[in-house]
C-alpha cells in the first residue's frame, strides 16, 4: 500500500513540475511582453510631449554639424538650456536617459555627458535607423552592472524627429524597467514557492493520514492474528480434550465389558452346578441378575459403537447408497418377513462416506422403522431422496407408532428412550449413533412425527463437490420418477 502511495507521489511530483514550470515561464513572458508594450507606449507619449515642448531646442541642437565636438556641445547655450528642460521633464518618469542622435549616429545630447559627440555602436545604430523608416523602434537590454550582481533592465525606444525639411534627428528614450522585471521575477518566485509549499503540505497531510490508517490496519491485523492464534490454541485444546474423552469412553466401555462377562459366566456356572441348592426362587433371582447384566452389556456395546464413530472411523470412499441400503434390507430380511413389512426404496445418489458407518446408519433407521410398528398394522418403510442446493436429503419414513413431536430433538440424545422396556426393547443409543454418524459426514438429521402417525427421519448430507454431471442427472431423474417425494 505504501509502495503504491510512493509511486503516486513521485508521478504527481513530476506532473507538478511539468505543469507549474512551463506555466510560470510562459505567464511571466506574457506579463513581461505586456509591460514592454505599456512602457513603450508611455515612452511614445513622453517622447511626443518632449518633442513638442522642446522642439526649438532640439532643432537648434541638431543643427550642429556632424563634426561637432563634445567640448563645443557642452559650451553651446542651447545645450545648457535643453539639459535643464530635460531634467525638469523627466523628474517623475522612469526614463533613465535621453539621447538626441544625429542622422549619422552622433550623440548630440545625452544626460551622460561622457558620451557626447561620440558615435553610436553600429548594432545600436542599425536599430535606430529602422526607426527612420518605420517611425518607431524599440529594444530592451539586460545590463549587469559591474559593481553589484544586480541586473538592470533598460527599454530603449527611438523616434525620428521631423521638421519641415524632413527627418533631421532621432530621439532615444531609455526607460528603466528593472522594478517591473523584479516584480515579475519575485512574483514568479513566490508563485512557484507557494505552490510547491501547498503541494508539500498536501503530501505531508496525505502521508500522515496514510501512516495513521496503516498503523490502525496493522494494529488490527496484529490483534486479529493474536485472536486467531488464541482460537487455534483453543481449538487444539478442545480437539485434544475431545479425543481424550472419546478414548476414555472407548476404554471405559471396553474395560467395563470384562467384569460383566465374568458375572454372566459365573452366573451360568452357579445356575448349572448349584441350581438345585438355590431353589426356584434363587434361580429366579439369578435369572434376573443375568438379564440385567446382559442388558448392561448391550448398553456398553452401544456406547462403544457410539464412541467408535469418531475413534475407529474409516476414511471416506465414493459410495453408492443404493447398494448399502439394499444390503441393510437383506440383513433385516428375517424381521421384515416376521412383521410382513414392506420397504420401498427409491434411487439414492453416490456420495463420499464411510461404508461401515453408512450401513450402521441405515441399519438403525430402517431397524427402528420396523421395530416401532403398530401392533395391528404391518410396517411400511419408505426411503426417499431429493437434492436441494448441492445437498442430498434422504427421508426414512414409517407408518408406526410415532412420537409426540416435542421429543423430536430429544430422541437423538444418548440413552434416550420414549417407551418402556416392556413395549419395545433397546438401549436408546440407536439414534444417538445415527446423529453422530451424520455429523461426522458433515450433515444433519432431524425427526418429524405425530403420535400414532408414523415418523420421518430427514438426513441432509453434502454431495461430493466434483460429482460428475451424469450423477446429478440421475438424481434429477429420480425426482421425476417419484413425484410424490418432491
Amino acid at each position: 500500500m505504501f509502495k503504491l502511495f510512493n509511486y503516486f507521489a513521485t508521478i504527481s511530483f513530476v506532473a507538478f513540475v511539468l505543469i507549474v514550470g512551463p506555466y510560470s515561464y510562459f505567464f511571466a513572458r506574457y506579463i513581461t511582453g505586456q509591460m514592454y508594450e505599456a512602457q513603450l507606449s508611455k515612452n511614445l507619449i513622453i517622447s511626443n510631449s518632449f518633442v513638442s515642448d522642446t522642439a526649438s531646442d532640439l532643432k537648434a541642437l541638431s543643427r550642429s554639424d556632424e563634426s561637432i565636438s563634445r567640448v563645443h556641445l557642452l559650451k553651446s547655450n542651447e545645450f545648457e538650456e535643453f539639459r535643464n528642460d530635460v531634467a525638469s521633464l523627466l523628474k517623475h518618469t522612469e526614463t533613465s536617459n535621453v539621447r538626441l542622435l544625429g542622422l549619422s549616429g552622433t550623440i548630440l545630447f545625452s544626460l551622460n555627458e561622457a558620451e557626447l559627440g561620440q558615435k553610436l555602436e553600429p548594432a545600436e545604430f542599425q536599430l535606430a535607423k529602422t526607426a527612420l523608416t518605420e517611425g518607431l523602434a524599440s529594444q530592451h537590454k539586460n545590463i549587469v552592472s559591474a559593481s553589484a550582481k544586480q541586473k538592470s533592465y533598460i527599454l530603449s525606444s527611438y523616434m525620428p524627429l521631423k521638421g519641415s525639411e524632413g527627418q533631421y534627428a532621432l530621439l532615444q528614450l531609455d526607460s528603466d524597467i528593472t522594478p517591473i522585471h523584479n516584480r515579475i521575477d519575485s512574483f514568479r518566485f513566490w508563485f512557484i514557492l507557494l505552490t510547491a509549499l501547498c503541494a508539500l503540505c498536501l503530501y505531508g497531510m496525505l502521508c500522515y493520514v496514510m501512516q495513521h490508517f496503516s498503523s490502525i490496519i496493522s494494529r488490527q491485523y496484529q490483534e486479529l492474528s493474536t485472536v486467531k492464534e488464541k482460537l487455534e490454541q483453543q481449538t487444539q485444546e478442545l480437539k485434544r480434550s475431545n479425543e481424550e474423552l472419546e478414548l476414555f469412553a472407548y476404554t471405559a466401555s471396553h474395560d467395563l465389558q470384562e467384569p460383566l462377562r465374568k458375572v454372566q459366566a459365573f452366573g451360568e456356572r452357579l445356575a448349572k452346578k448349584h441350581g438345585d441348592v438355590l431353589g426356584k426362587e434363587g434361580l429366579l433371582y439369578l435369572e434376573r441378575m443375568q438379564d440385567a447384566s446382559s442388558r448392561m452389556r448391550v448398553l456398553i456395546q452401544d456406547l462403544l459403537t457410539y464412541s467408535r464413530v469418531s475413534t475407529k472411523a474409516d476414511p471416506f470412499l465414493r459410495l453408492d447408497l443404493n447398494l448399502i441400503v439394499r444390503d441393510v434390507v437383506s440383513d433385516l430380511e428375517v424381521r421384515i418377513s416376521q412383521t410382513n413389512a414392506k420397504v420401498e426404496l427409491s434411487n439414492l445418489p453416490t456420495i463420499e462416506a464411510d461404508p461401515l458407518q453408512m450401513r450402521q446408519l441405515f441399519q438403525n433407521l430402517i431397524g427402528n422403522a420396523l421395530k416401532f410398528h403398530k401392533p395391528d398394522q404391518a410396517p411400511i418403510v419408505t426411503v426417499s431422496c431429493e437434492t436441494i442446493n448441492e445437498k442430498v436429503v434422504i427421508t426414512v419414513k414409517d407408518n408406526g407408532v410415532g412420537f409426540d413431536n416435542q421429543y423430536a430433538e430429544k430422541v437423538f440424545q444418548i440413552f434416550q428412550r420414549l417407551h418402556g422396556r416392556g413395549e419395545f426393547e433397546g438401549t436408546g443409543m440407536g439414534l444417538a449413533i445415527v446423529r453422530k454418524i451424520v455429523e461426522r459426514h458433515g450433515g444433519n438429521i432431524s425427526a418429524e412425527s405425530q403420535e400414532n402417525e408414523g415418523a420421518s427421519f430427514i438426513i441432509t448430507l453434502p454431495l461430493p463437490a466434483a460429482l460428475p454431471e451424469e450423477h446429478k442427472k440421475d438424481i434429477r431423474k429420480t425426482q421425476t420418477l417419484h413425484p410424490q417425494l418432491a
Partner: protein
Amino acid sequence: MNRKPITILMADDDPDDRMLTGEALEESLLANDLHFVEDGEELMDYLHCRGKYSDPVSAPKPGVILLDLNMPKKDGREALKEIKSDPNLKRIPIVVMTTSKVEQDILRSYDLGANSYITKPVTFDGLVDVIRNLGRYWFEIVELPQSEEYVRS
C-alpha cells in the same frame, strides 16, 4: 483316537478366565492336559524351559498355545512375534483368545503368524463350545508334525 492327548498351554493374566477355561475343558470332556502361564515372560520361560519350568514332566511341551493379547510384562503380541520368529517354536499352533474385537489386533495377530483368532465368548456355554471345537479341530482334524521333537534350549 490313538493319539496321545496334546498339552494345551494357556497364557492369560486373568484368573477368572483361567478357571473358566479349565471348567470348560472339563465340561467338554476333553482329556487334554491344561497348563497355565500368567504373562508373556512366563510363557517364554515355559517354552524355553527356564526357571520353574525346567522340569519336562511338570512342564511338558505344548501342542497348542491359547494366547491372550493383553497381558502384563510382555504382552501377547510380543510373545507371538518372538515365538513365530524362533525356528524351534514357530511350528507350535497358536490360537489367540482375547476380548479385543479390534480389527487392527486381528490383522496384526495373523500378520505375526497366529493360527487362529478367537474373541472370548460372553457366556460359559459359548466358552465350552469354543473349547470343544478347538479340541476337535486341533486334536482330531488337523495333522500336526508328530515326529518333531522340538528342541528345548
